[in-house]
């Protein structure tokens, strides 16, 4: 069979598709879990049955979504071992720890209490069941925390060093891994995006009920909760997204420059390109529309610090490739003479740039003989795909501001008890249902495409991390995933629509 894409591209495609698919379910789990906790808290405080009915109804949708999230998440962890075996060996000692903690701590907590949530209504006291609901929410959020600590380390690999004897990265400071600023910023941004997703989900379905005149009591209360929770979350997601952008500006300058399609370094403070057409081939951005100072303020929080452009960063990358070649030569020596202290010292001095020299492996097999043109090619390979980043980021940010407007209006109408008076608003709210998912997926595209060509930023190029599999094998599993996940999606949508159509009657006596 003639396959156009090589095994690296197929493995990336498979992981990207499965990750994006998995993340259809994660944000709703995060958001709905907290909303369930809020609704049930009101039920316990007021004793009014409608709040219990709301908790159970939205809880059923949460359960369908949760099951899908678990099923699609597990396969991703297997892919690390199957498709990314070199990656798993090289950084497994660091990356594996948060994944293991996620399973043992967060997922076990979540999985245990979700059973009690569904089957404990008639067996637990009100207070005990409320505690269970909040523990499910806590478990979901802890789960996200550990996954994002792992992902944050891929973006900003702190607290670890390369051991030339084992050919692995090893943890030197677990606290640095845990409190990695990139991971923490990503966590709060991602979780608040999940809260927005949960709130939009409840708002949209409630709007659908109000437009149909069905389940009015439940829908109005649900919209009120979703509006207030969603407004706080939408504001948070923008503020915390700014924090995430700032940490990326500190640690992943190339990602920021690519998001901005900024080729030349501007005098501080840099302007922000609202619109433009990135032209990666010619290293320029056409038809730019710029806002002065804005990027400098966002990325550096100052008016006197520069935001480096792509050309300047490529020149820096070239220097690091040359430095990395020294580390590479030292490593080569150490593999044959482990007692060579001079080589060990050279590796220690230039080890931070070893990954840059590894970029040359894509250009020529004997990288020790790399010419200047090869170094330049390797340096330019550190520029990710600019256009997808540029547009994904802008659409995501635009949607973020749309959610603030949507929830502000919803909050006002709910406070004024006028939700039913504005059918146009209800229609807009109902049609907004897919938007938070689009924003969340685009956010991940920005995060992961922006990290390329690295699987671990500055440490390990993606193409070296992939397993020695045949493209045919990967294509087979990719087709299998697409087929199986498509079937799961049909089942999921069927169950969701069926449950929404039935509404809270699903629990009501005849």
């Amino acid at each position, binding site marked *: 069979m003639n396959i156009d894409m090589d095994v690296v591209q197929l493995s990336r495609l498979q992981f990207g598709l499965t990750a994006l698919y998995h993340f259809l379910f994660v944000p709703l789990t995060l958001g709905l879990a907290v909303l369930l906790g809020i609704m049930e808290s009101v039920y316990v405080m007021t004793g009014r049955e409608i709040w219990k009915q709301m908790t159970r109804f939205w809880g059923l949708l949460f359960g369908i979504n949760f099951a899908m999230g678990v099923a699609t998440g597990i396969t991703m962890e*297997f892919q690390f*071992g*199957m498709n990314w*075996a*070199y990656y*798993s*060996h*090289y950084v497994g000692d660091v990356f594996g720890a948060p994944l293991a903690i996620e399973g043992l701590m967060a997922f076990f907590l979540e999985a245990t209490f979700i059973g009690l949530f*569904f*089957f404990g*209504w*008639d067996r637990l006291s009100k207070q005990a069941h409320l505690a269970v609901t909040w523990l499910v929410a806590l478990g979901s959020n802890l789960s996200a925390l550990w996954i994002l600590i792992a992902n944050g380390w891929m973006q900003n690999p702190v607290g670890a060093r390369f051991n030339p*004897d*084992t*050919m*692995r990265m090893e943890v030197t400071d677990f606290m640095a891994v845990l409190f990695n600023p990139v991971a923490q910023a990503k966590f709060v941004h991602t979780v608040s995006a999940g809260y927005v997703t949960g709130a939009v989900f409840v708002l949209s379905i409630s709007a659908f009920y109000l437009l149909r005149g069905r389940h009015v009591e439940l829908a109005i209360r649900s919209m009120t909760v979703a509006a207030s929770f969603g407004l706080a979350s939408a504001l948070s997601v923008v503020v915390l997204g700014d924090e995430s952008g700032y940490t990326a500006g500190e640690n992943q300058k190339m990602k920021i420059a690519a998001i901005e399609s900024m080729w030349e370094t501007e005098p501080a403070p840099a302007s922000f390109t609202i619109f433009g057409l990135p032209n990666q081939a010619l290293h320029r951005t056409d038809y730019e529309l710029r806002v002065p100072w804005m990027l400098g303020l966002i990325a550096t929080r100052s008016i006197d610090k520069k935001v480096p452009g792509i050309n300047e960063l490529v020149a820096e990358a070239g220097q690091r490739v040359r430095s990395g070649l020294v580390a*590479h030569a030292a*490593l*080569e020596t150490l*593999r044959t003479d482990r007692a060579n202290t001079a080589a060990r010292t050279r590796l220690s001095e230039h080890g931070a740039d070893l990954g840059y020299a*590894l970029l040359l*492996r894509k250009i020529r*097999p*004997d*990288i*020790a003989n790399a010419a200047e043109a090869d170094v330049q090619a390797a340096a330019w390979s550190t520029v990710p795909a600019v256009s997808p980043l540029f547009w994904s980021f802008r659409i995501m940010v635009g949607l973020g501001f749309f959610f603030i407007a949507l929830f502000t209006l919803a909050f006002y109408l709910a406070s004024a008890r006028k939700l039913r008076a504005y059918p146009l608003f209800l229609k807009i709210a109902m049609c907004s249902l897919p938007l938070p998912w689009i924003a969340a997926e685009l956010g991940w595209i920005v995060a992961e495409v922006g990290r390329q060509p690295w699987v671990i930023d500055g440490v390990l190029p993606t193409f*070296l991390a992939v*397993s*020695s*599999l*045949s493209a045919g*094998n990967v294509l*087979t599993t990719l087709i299998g995933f697409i087929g199986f996940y498509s079937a799961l999606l049909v089942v999921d949508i069927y169950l969701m629509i069926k449950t929404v159509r*039935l509404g809270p*009657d*699903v*629990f009501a*006596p*005849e």
Partner: protein
Amino acid sequence: MIQIKVPVGQSIEKRHMSKPKLLRDVVVVVVAKIVLVIAAGVFVFGPAERPRIDSASVASRLIGQPDSPPPSRNRTP
């Protein structure tokens, strides 16, 4: 199939949780899962199917010496 409408006073859980039926359902589900996990372990994730990577193979890939033949699999699925 889960029947949605339930008689007055009976929750879905109660209706579907009579002990013999619950026990049978639990046993069927657990057995099915065990069979699936063992089958996946043998045919998909077993040692024979698992890429084997050690420090030598990583060194070979990173340092750039000619790659040894795929060190990974004893058989091809």
